[in-house]
């Protein structure tokens, strides 16, 4: 009779720190021998539904999977669509896209920080993370009119111009966040308990990170300076100065610190954007001239786009397009195949979280049970984004 040493823990989908997924953990004593993620609990078939929807209708659809990081998903899709259509947004729209993407990056990173806090047991960091996230959400709301699902970026431009007084409000918000980041350092990042829990836990080596195709802050924390914004700049990024946050350690702490550094860099980018933003239209000339003259006046006065009728039935020529953007959680890839009709023939959307799923089985093996949430949180994994 063989002795059974391990028990199988089913973590999730109803578990305070599982999110919308299940982890099968085989536990020997306190050590996790094997861990398999079981995803798909939020698989909502975005790729299939996209084949039945018109191009403009897909914008809200691709936002939904990643509710915490909608602007970048929206941007990635629109960039691919613009490549198909062969149009380009005017410079002012490019800058506006950049600012929204960076605001989204900030609040998404605060989201990750907060969730990681509660997974480690620090409810204060959860509350702080979500409180400071609200600042950026509020600013985004002024810009776009929505809290999370902006659908701000449309083919050829953006929906709205900067509201009045946005620059000053933003400067205030950024100063506040800078102040808060110091508090985070005091209470969380330099807290001896946090450091004991995170340093040297879940180390991802550089070779492994490259081999497994990890993306985003998780990749950069392992010493790979890959950032789509630098490697293949899009929107206004070529004209902006910022550093890629890289750390060599590759442990959970490094992943957290990379995110905090990215918040700082994003603030730097926002400041530059607000300083350098050029005047001009916010929608490509090709579409602007299709807006009836009666509405055109409204558009110019209010800085809000009334959709021209052509948008409802966009017909890109036959072909395919590939786009990649640096979303908050990493590189986001869209691949669209068009057959010349009003709906895409195939939309492939590879989200950063989906590419990071492999880390669960790679990193958590050999760790302790208590490390499961610590590592999970440090990956900033968002299950709906992975399942699509």
């Amino acid at each position: 009779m063989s002795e059974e040493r391990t028990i199988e823990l089913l973590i999730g989908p109803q578990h305070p720190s599982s999110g919308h997924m299940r982890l099968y953990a085989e536990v020997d004593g306190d050590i996790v021998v094997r861990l398999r993620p079981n995803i798909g609990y939020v698989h909502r078939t975005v790729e299939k539904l996209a084949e039945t929807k018109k191009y403009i209708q897909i914008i809200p659809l691709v936002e939904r999977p990643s509710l915490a990081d909608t602007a970048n998903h929206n941007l990635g899709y629109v960039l691919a669509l613009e490549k198909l259509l062969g149009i380009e947004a005017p410079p002012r729209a490019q800058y506006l896209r950049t600012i929204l993407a960076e605001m989204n990056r900030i609040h998404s990173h605060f989201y990750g920080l907060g969730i990681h806090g509660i997974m480690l047991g620090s409810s204060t960091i959860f509350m702080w993370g979500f409180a400071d996230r609200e600042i950026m959400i509020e600013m985004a709301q002024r810009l776009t009119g929505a809290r999370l699902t902006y659908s701000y970026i449309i083919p050829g431009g953006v929906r709205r111009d900067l509201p009045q007084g946005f620059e000053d409000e933003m400067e205030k918000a950024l100063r506040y966040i800078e102040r808060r980041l110091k508090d985070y350092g005091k209470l969380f990042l330099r807290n001896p308990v946090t450091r004991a829990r995170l340093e040297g836990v879940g180390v991802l080596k550089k070779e492994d990170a490259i081999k497994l195709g990890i993306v985003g802050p998780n990749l950069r924390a392992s010493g790979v300076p890959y950032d789509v914004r630098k490697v293949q700049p899009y929107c206004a990024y070529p004209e902006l100065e910022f550093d890629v946050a890289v750390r060599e350690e590759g442990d959970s702490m490094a992943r957290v610190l990379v995110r905090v550094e990215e918040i700082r860099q994003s603030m730097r980018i926002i400041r530059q954007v607000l300083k350098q933003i050029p005047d001009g239209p916010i929608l490509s000339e090709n579409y602007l001239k299709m807006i009836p003259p009666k509405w055109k006046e409204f558009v110019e006065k209010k800085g809000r786009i009334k959709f021209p009728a052509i948008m409802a039935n966009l017909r890109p020529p036959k072909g395919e397009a590939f786009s990649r953007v640096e979303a908050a959680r990493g590189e986001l890839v869209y691949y669209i195949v068009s057959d010349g009709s009003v709906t895409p023939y195939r939309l492939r959307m590879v989200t950063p979280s989906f590419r990071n799923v492999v880390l669960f089985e790679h990193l958590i093996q050999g760790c302790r049970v208590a490390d499961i949430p610590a590592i999970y949180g440090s990956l900033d994994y968002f299950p709906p984004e992975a399942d699509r």
Partner: protein
Amino acid sequence: MMNLMDLLKWILDLLFSPWLFVPLIFPGLITVFAILLFIIWFERKLAAKVQLRYGPLYVLKQLGGAIQLVADLIRYLFAEPIVPEQTDKLAFVLGPIFLFAASFIPCVIIPVSSSFYAIRSDIGLLISLGLLTFSPAIILIIGWASNNKFSLIGGLREGYLTMAYEIPLFISALSMAALYGTMDLIEMVETQSEGTWGIILNPLAALTFLILAFMSTSRFPFEIVEAESEIVMGPFTEYSGILYGLTMGASYVKFYVLCLLFSIMFLGGWQPVPSLLSWSPLFSRIILPGVILLLKSLVIMIFGVFLRSVYPRYRIDQALKIGWHMILPLSIGSVFLSLGLILLGVVP
């Protein structure tokens, strides 16, 4: 009329007889429930303050939601008590009751003042600490009886931790007993009233005792047994309704008892009683010392629950390491400190 007065006097006498007063009123049952209601609400309020929000409020807005716990208690009472199919039913149902009782019973040993107590024993300290060691064993049983993997892990965690905190806890308490030359809680306080408080004499023992008190009642950063984001609620995962209320209350009650002991050992207990107000024996014998003792332990408790908003939690192996590698040597050091103080003649 006389009869009624007699009856009233009789009731009062009965109530203020130490045999009834101590277990029932202070530090016993009524105070325990009041403390439970207060400290859990205060914990939530305090955390909310740090976290830039209000915490419980609308349940009674005038008092800042102070009766939030009453509402929770009522809900617990009327919730369906679920005893899952495959549990060890007897242990499952009786576990929380025994757990609460085991945490509560040491209250009886605690004296209210030099002349008012239920039980006075030469080894009062030992008895109270000894009674407190029951609860980890019951948690272990609960964890086993629940027939849930998370509960099992939680119970085992408690088992491991018990070893790490119980031994140093006894050692640092005994170092104070050596310092005062007695294990009688009343004599301990009286020794402090002549000299200085224990926390100044032997800060090492005070520090270790406090940390171990946090550890044994799973306060942050040692909230490892319940660890909600890792093993859900640990041993208490399967409990619902009032049984869960008891398990949740038990750790607070244990913490309360340990804080009372801490105040007695290190903070001079009910000392100093202002002699100004000693016009009534009832007042100077019972109420005033009791209030002072309660306030001292409340301060410690508030400090303990405040840590929730500062620290995340340690991993079990790290906590064990802290227990065995840091606190145990420190507590042994506190014994030597006590011996040194006695040799130097600092203590009478």
